[in-house]
């Protein structure tokens, strides 16, 4: 069964990190309230270069790094399992941000796959 956008910590963290003016500011929360943001595509976020194809999605890397840092520093999640590495998590994030099809729900699903939040400790 596919992941559902819902009011859990993975979805909340994904939403707040991307939308907050003091976080990554990738979209306006007035345009996409939390309950409706799950279908928002990552390609429509502000980090994307739209005027030229010359950089071939290169901007996804920095965005993934910033998302990883914001998630780790502000939400202090633990690894879902000790075998996981930050490298694997980060590369998964890069592919998501580079994708033209993935949504905030896909991003939250990845966060949930990799992370355990305080209500799960």
């Amino acid at each position, binding site marked *: 069964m596919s992941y559902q956008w819902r009011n859990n910590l993975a979805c909340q963290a994904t939403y707040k990190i991307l939308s907050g003016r003091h976080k990554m500011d*990738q979209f306006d929360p007035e345009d996409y309230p939390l309950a409706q943001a799950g279908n928002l595509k990552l390609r429509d976020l502000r980090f994307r270069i739209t005027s030229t194809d*010359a950089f071939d999605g290169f*901007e996804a890397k*920095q965005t993934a*790094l910033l998302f990883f840092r914001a998630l780790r520093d502000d939400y202090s999640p633990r*690894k879902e399992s000790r075998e996981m590495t*930050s490298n694997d998590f980060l590369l998964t994030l890069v592919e998501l941000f*580079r994708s033209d099809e993935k949504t905030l729900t896909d991003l939250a699903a990845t966060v949930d796959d990799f992370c355990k939040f305080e209500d799960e400790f």
Partner: protein
Amino acid sequence: MRQGIAALGTALAALLLTGVTVSAEESRQAEFSPTILSAESDSTVLGLSYELASSGRRNFAAPPAPDSDAWEDPEIDALEWGYILKGVLTGNPDDNPENFAELDLHLNYSRLALDLPVQEFGAVYKYEADQSFDNKQSLVGLRYTAHISRMVAGTYRTSGDLFVRATLGKVSPISDAAREALLGASMERYNRWDAIALYKLPTRDWLGDFSEDLEISYRYFEEISPPDAVREAGLDSFDYLSVVLNLKNNLFVAYTEGELPTDLDEDKTFKLGWSWELGELVR
């Protein structure tokens, strides 16, 4: 050209067979965006910009997970490869102010870490042509790309992003009417460098909430040690300026000026447009 392709192919095969890699990912995408193009010398025409891409990555130097459930700092060394085919089509190629199509085949070393600028460096093979393929050439070379951000203190957002990509390579003209007229039918390969710098600047604070950001890019091509005839004809360098204001709902206003190596008709172009994707239809 064949040597360049063979070298890239060999490197790719070696990479695929290597035993030190730990994981690989592949991705594909296709995008088509209708645009309205208006050239200074022509009437307005409807164009279709397209991009087909495939990429993969193999990671190496992957350390084992530390015996902890806390997230350590990521530090990634990876080889990445892929192709991108892109360009702009119009009904009549002569009406196309962005008369340029490109195939880009690349193999890059990439490093990712929290406190380093994002960079990659590697080999590239490019095939460049105009829409009608009357003028075409290939390039084999080395390419460097970097992304430097200026962060807003206390946040994870940027107040400006600078992207730079530079390429140094050997160009093999396949069909080039302008050079042929100057140098005769036996056109020799030549060295060229090119670079593009793009600055992306959020505009909502000073233009209002209807706007998103401004993207200003400048691209420059220069032939190294060109023949006198090429220099005197002004075919040794080209530049291209683009200024795009992105608005809400995928709308944009764009101004472009300049010429590209396979499109010598310098034009000032003003565009109004929107974009969407039809990727699933071509998979």
